[in-house]
């Protein structure tokens, strides 16, 4: 199997290297990739959409249909992880860990069944990782609001700087994953519940498709944001910029919810009680 693998890879590699003799020289401004449509996108992005970031305007306005299906793909991945891993019958663990809040002593209680309810002096802990690290917990608790603020900035400022909906959504999701790793998964689930996450991931796709349908209802084509100038008090160029911002918010919400759902299902093997 290994020799067959090496043979196949070497043969394919040799064919590709032989085909690369036909490629244009690296960095050529007249290569065919840069000649037909993209000069028009670069030259017209300021006067048609007033968004300086050419990548954002092409992604959300000129090629907005592809981005809508990309958001649907992310949502489908979240749904399939949920359907593969999530189990609803309670976990029968053989032992639970508890920590005394005042002294930091950890107890292991060997008792089958669900966890004991939270007692006054003891708090339940994740069993996979038992040492208690005060520096990490406090530091992450202070850092997470700033990470979320930065993520919201990245979503909102995607018109003028690198960034946009997808990057900001991933950073928002990563901040909640940081909360689940540094403290335990129960506190992350208390902040944002599983039902809320499901609603958010659908809401993201719905905002994107809804903006397109709104343009359809106002008499123009699907995802043609210039029609939004009939309800909002902006001229058609500003309406396209506003439409780009709305769909970026939708993408960001959908991506955030999906990243958190996939992490929760992977890290707790579907039971959503304890994690890494």
């Amino acid at each position, binding site marked *: 199997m290994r020799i067959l693998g*090496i043979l196949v890879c070497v043969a394919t590699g040799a064919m*590709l290297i032989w085909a*690369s003799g036909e490629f244009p020289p690296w960095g050529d401004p007249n290569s065919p990739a*840069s000649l037909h449509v993209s000069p028009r996108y*670069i030259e017209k992005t300021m006067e048609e959409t007033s968004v*300086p970031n050419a*990548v954002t305007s*092409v992604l959300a306005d000129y090629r907005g249909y592809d981005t809508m299906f990309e958001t649907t793909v992310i949502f489908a991945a979240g749904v399939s992880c949920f359907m593969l891993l999530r189990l609803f019958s309670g976990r029968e663990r053989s032992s639970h860990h508890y920590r005394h809040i005042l002294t930091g002593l950890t107890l292991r209680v060997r008792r089958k069944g669900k966890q004991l309810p939270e007692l006054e002096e003891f708090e339940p802990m994740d069993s996979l990782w038992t040492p208690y690290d005060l520096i990490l917990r406090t530091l992450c608790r202070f850092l997470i609001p700033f990470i979320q603020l930065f993520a919201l900035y990245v979503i909102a400022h995607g018109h003028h700087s690198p960034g946009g909906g997808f990057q900001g959504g991933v950073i928002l999701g990563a901040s909640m994953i940081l909360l689940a790793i540094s403290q335990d998964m129960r506190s992350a689930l208390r902040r944002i519940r599983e039902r809320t996450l499901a609603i958010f991931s659908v809401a993201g796709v719905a905002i994107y498709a809804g903006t397109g349908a709104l343009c359809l209802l106002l008499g123009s084509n699907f995802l043609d944001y210039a029609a939004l100038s009939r309800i909002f008090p902006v001229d058609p160029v500003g309406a396209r910029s506003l439409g780009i911002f709305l769909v970026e918010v939708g993408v960001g919400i959908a991506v955030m919810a999906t990243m958190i759902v996939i992490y929760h299902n992977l890290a707790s093997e579907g039971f959503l009680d304890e994690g890494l």
Partner: protein
Amino acid sequence: MDRILEVVIAKYNYWIYIVLMMIGLYGVIAKNNLVKKIVGMSIFQTAIILFFISMGMKKGATIPIIIHGQEASVRASDYINPLPHVLMLTAIVVAVSTLGVALALAVKIYKEFDTLEEDEILEKIRKS
């Protein structure tokens, strides 16, 4: 000899991208462990994205964000081609989605068969 050196210097970028793609392909085909196969698939995906991004490069051009004072006179040869970047953003999103689903499948297979090596899994399926 001179011509060979010339060809190598002009095209060595493309050759390294092809080497990376073949490393990823080898990982998917010939490795036994499921997680190594997933790593190989990811290496292949990022190598393809690297190849596309390198096609959009223009010598002496700047990043595709229109400079603040020069909105009136924009020339397309001053800015890098933004079209491959847009396509590759979608490709990265799809890559991370498939990674999540592939890892969920691997965890499920481990729960069922108690091993992650492909030949042991095939043995257990054949026996049962």
